[in-house]
């Protein structure tokens, strides 16, 4: 049976950068083409990998020592979020040449609503999708997978249908063909728990789910899954969120220190200093993270780290240090010799946009604003770290705290006259040319 008579009651495009971070690196450096490229060196885990690396078994989140085991010839690079963000912005901008209705879903994905543009643009939806893909591929120097469907859930099915560099079009009439053998876990918004539950109920494929009668859905599933059910049947339920996003940016501070240490006090102090530095940068840009990740690196280049989710965005280092201290023992192992620590602020928001909470925590943090404004002013006048936290004291006093050059992105080390380590021209750099 067919759920719709029309091909595109709505025309929603989903665009997904193939192995995005790794592809950005390859777009900048042609020597990497055809090689297994892995990013995430600064975190000790693979954050993205080229298809060549994927073929050898490298997966997202894999520890780098394992990456080297599976793929000894892997080119492992530090993540260069500045460059990835530039590419990301360009992706959105290319799509906006065709429609203003673009949802910046994540750094490497976006949705676009093309509904109603056939007449003004004088082309079919397929033609628009092809043109957008061609412009993205040729102008950004990497490939994108594109899906066109009547809604977001099916748009995602379409863009994943053929990867890398696919272009898949699912008109409402043909939805069943695509869903027939598709496992539920492949559907956006359906996780392992729900898949297991549905499997137990005898529903194994997206098609079987979409074919369940409305009464069954109402009796067994909560609202989000009812919406997914509707979208699988070709209805348009999820609107596009057209606000500009910032949360894909991250701020990271990583330092190696000598001599290496087993002393938790010394290691924590180094971490505290990184957190302070990251917060200084966040405050300079008026941003506050919702998540923080910290890690310790041993003499043998083993990494261990932990991600913390904050109840509200925060750029006050003393509060962040307090949170990290409460879980530090889970990461620090006494027998190991540590040589570096790092702090990464993620899911950044514009500071001041946070909601007040019931217990007054946010209001209390607001009181610190003038304090840090003064700290920043003093640092500006008398040099960095004129004022610092007590927890950072050890790091300030005894060890040399050097930047780990091997984990800093190449761009920060190849500057033009007039650029500095803080600010560079906002155009992706292809490197040197003879």
């Amino acid at each position, binding site marked *: 049976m067919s759920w719709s008579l029309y091909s595109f009651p709505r025309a929603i495009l989903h665009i997904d950068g193939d192995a995005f971070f790794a592809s950005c690196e390859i777009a900048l450096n*042609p*020597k990497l*083409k055809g090689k297994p490229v892995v990013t995430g060196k600064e975190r000790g885990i693979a954050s993205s990998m080229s298809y060549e690396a994927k073929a050898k078994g490298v997966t997202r989140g894999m520890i780098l020592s394992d990456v080297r085991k599976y793929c000894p010839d892997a080119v492992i690079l530090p993540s260069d979020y500045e460059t990835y963000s530039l590419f990301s912005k*360009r992706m959105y*901008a*290319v799509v906006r040449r065709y429609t203003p209705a673009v949802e910046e879903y994540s750094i490497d994905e976006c949705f676009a609503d093309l509904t109603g543009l056939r007449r003004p643009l004088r082309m079919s939806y397929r033609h628009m999708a092809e043109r957008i893909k061609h*412009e993205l591929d*040729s*102008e*950004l*120097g990497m490939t994108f997978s594109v899906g066109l469907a009547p809604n977001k859930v099916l748009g995602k099915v379409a863009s994943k249908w053929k990867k890398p560099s696919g272009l898949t079009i699912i008109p409402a009439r043909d939805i069943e063909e695509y869903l027939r053998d598709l496992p539920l876990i492949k559907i956006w918004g359906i996780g392992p728990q729900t898949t297991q539950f549905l499997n137990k109920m005898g529903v194994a494929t997206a098609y079987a789910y979409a074919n369940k009668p409305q009464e069954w859905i109402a009796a067994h599933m909560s609202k989000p899954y009812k919406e997914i059910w509707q979208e699988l049947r070709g209805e348009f339920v999820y609107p596009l969120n057209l606000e500009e996003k910032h949360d894909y940016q991250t701020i990271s501070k990583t330092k190696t220190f000598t001599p290496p240490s087993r002393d938790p006090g010394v290691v924590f102090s180094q971490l505290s200093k990184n957190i302070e530095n990251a917060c200084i940068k966040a405050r300079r840009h008026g941003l506050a993270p919702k998540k923080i990740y910290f890690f310790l690196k041993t003499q043998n280049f083993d990494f261990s780290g932990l991600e913390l989710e904050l109840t509200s965005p925060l750029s006050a280092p003393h509060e962040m240090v307090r949170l990290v201290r409460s879980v530090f023992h889970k990461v620090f192992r006494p027998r190991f010799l540590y040589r570096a620590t790092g702090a990464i602020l993620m899911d950044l928001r514009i500071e001041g946009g946070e909601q007040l909470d019931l217990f007054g925590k946010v209001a209390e943090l607001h009181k610190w604003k003038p304090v840090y404004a003064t700290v920043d002013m003093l640092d500006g006048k008398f040099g960095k770290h004129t004022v610092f936290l007590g927890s950072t004291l050890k790091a300030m006093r005894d060890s040399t705290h050097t930047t780990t050059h091997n984990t800093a992105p190449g761009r920060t080390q*190849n500057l*033009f*006259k*007039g650029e500095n380590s803080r600010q560079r*021209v906002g*155009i*992706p*750099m*292809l*490197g*040197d*040319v*003879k």
Partner: protein
Amino acid sequence: MKTSSAQKFRGMVEAGFPSAAEEELLDTMTLEEFLIENKEATFMLKVKGDSMIDAGIMEGDMVLVERGKQPKSGNIVIARIDGEYTMKYYRKRNGKIFLEAANKKFKPLFPEQELLVEAIVIAVIRKY
């Protein structure tokens, strides 16, 4: 009409000299707009060596390039040869494509298999 009486009073506002700048500025562009035509397709590189010195391109210069454009004979292009970027004149003579330096010390490069043009040079910037 109500609006017309309101308009009469606008003449009373003392504004000093009219600012000539505002209207005139509509017809200006920023340096960025002047240099860059297609923002999303524009990348930069840093020049090493002196192979394009006679074209006025020196070591350390910033070159702006545009991806996704068809090269024409006489363009300065960024081409890929053996996995390396090289910046040369793109030449087409008697149906044959080759790369030419702007420096007599360098011989023209005839591609053995294929020549991949990655981008076309659209500007050179040097800061003193």
